[in-house]
């Protein structure tokens, strides 16, 4: 007591309690209003009871769909993750190649940097119709939307990280006899790889946004497709678990990428403590 609030620390248990509090508050608010509305009108669809949501989840995750024969949640998850994975992989390759080229080689910087700066300002959603026209309504246009939406950010971010590398390291490599290619392979690439992973983590939100938008407009499966399909029936018992599932997937991807950085680049952690 008597300490300023900026000096008052909490223990491990306290941190868990305070962290869980908003979630608990949200669940309780939902339960209360759901119960109130259902008491008024048992057919209310806006805030379904937890039991209804639970049953729906069970049906989505275990019972094959009458029309397609697939289990919807897994079919949708697989389709969405496939698009997201290919899109992010493509964007990463472009980001890595473009970023290193622009950050390291003056001629390529002069030639490419303005064009990338302009492209990165084009709102990807605005050219989605063009993508549908050019690449068709199949998988390719959705993957391309993610690539076009994410790659310019990755390229610019990595180009900046490469040109921020201390010049001393590049000079040193040259005095050790390295060619440009060897410098890329042994000096630049290993040092920007963890930065690429961080940049991907930052662009996960945007990638999901593009994915769900594309699926909402033209798809026959996928998490975004399902949400926008059942919207017509006000099926909040499907929409809410799907949103929670998407959030969980995004969170898991972020966590995996963070772990990946720790495991694969041990030198990042050394000497920090």
């Amino acid at each position, binding site marked *: 007591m008597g300490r300023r609030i900026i000096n008052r620390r909490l223990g491990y248990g306290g941190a868990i309690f305070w962290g869980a509090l908003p979630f608990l508050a949200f669940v309780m608010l939902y339960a209360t209003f759901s119960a109130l509305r259902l008491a008024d009108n048992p057919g209310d669809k806006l805030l379904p009871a937890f039991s209804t949501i639970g049953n729906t989840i069970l049906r989505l995750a275990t019972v094959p769909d009458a029309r397609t024969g697939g289990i919807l949640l897994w079919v949708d998850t697989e389709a969405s993750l496939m698009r997201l994975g290919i899109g992010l992989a493509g964007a990463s390759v472009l980001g890595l190649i473009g970023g290193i080229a622009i950050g390291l080689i003056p001629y390529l910087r002069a030639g490419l940097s303005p064009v990338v700066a302009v492209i990165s300002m084009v709102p990807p959603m605005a050219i989605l119709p063009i993508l549908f026209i050019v690449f068709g309504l199949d998988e390719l246009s959705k993957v391309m939307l993610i690539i076009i939406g994410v790659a310019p950010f990755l390229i610019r971010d990595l180009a900046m990280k490469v040109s921020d590398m*201390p010049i*001393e*390291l590049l*000079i*040193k*490599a*040259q*005095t*050790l*006899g*390295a*060619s440009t*290619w*060897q410098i890329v*392979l*042994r*000096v630049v690439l*290993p*040092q920007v790889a963890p930065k690429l992973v961080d940049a991907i983590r930052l662009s996960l939100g945007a990638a999901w946004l593009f994915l769900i938008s594309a699926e909402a407009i033209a798809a026959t499966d996928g998490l975004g497709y399902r949400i926008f399909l059942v919207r017509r029936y006000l099926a909040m018992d499907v929409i809410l678990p799907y949103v929670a599932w998407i959030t969980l997937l995004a969170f898991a991807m972020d966590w995996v990428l963070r772990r990946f950085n720790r495991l694969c*680049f*041990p*030198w990042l952690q*050394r*000497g*920090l403590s």
Partner: protein
Amino acid sequence: MSTLSVRNVWMEYADQVVLERVNLEIPSGEFCALVGPSGCGKTTFLRLLLSMERPTRGTILLDDAPLSAEPGPGRGVVFQKYSAFPHLTVSENVILGLEFAGSPVLGKLFGARRRAALDQAETILASVGLSGARDKYPAELSGGMQQRLAIAQTLVRKPKVLLMDEPFGALDVGTKAQMYELILALWREVRMTVFMVTHDLKEGFSLATRVLAFDKVRLDPDAPGAYGATVTFNLPLDEKAERADIVAKLPFAPV
């Protein structure tokens, strides 16, 4: 083996002259200390020797041939900071030079060739006293150990010229003394030509066989950038035993 001639070298930027009229004849195997107040072009001169920049006038000849236009394996360098590659362990840092030379496509050696390179690195690491730290990353090393690693890393390519930019500037007194012994021992063994920038006169005089003092001789108070610095004192320290060897190898009598 590695005589350096600097002929009327100028270094001018848009609005200021940094170096002017620099003329030097440095015999092979000399240990030169570049001293002078800050901002007087010592580091710029070192950057010219490293080909990080090109002089705006004049020529620099290494063994009677013009200096190559970019940094290369003939001239090793030790910077004050960022000397080692943070993503490689100590021994990986040292074999890097061998890997660049032995593997043009991948820049990485495998199997028996990698083991041979590691053996060679081990000898060098032992000579700089880093054997125990071979599997650590640079960030885990103390400042002195990092500079030893930087020196070990350059030695692997056996440079004819070693350039050092305030290599011991960030070290404490005790560590400095150890580093002096180390660098002198290595230099006596390899006898490369050394250029070391230092702001510490005492360090310069105790290590070097020749002290080069940089300073401005002309000053226009209305235009501080109008005149550059030059070598005001070029002082061979003939009382040092090592200089006798250097002079004995000269094809002509010293001036």
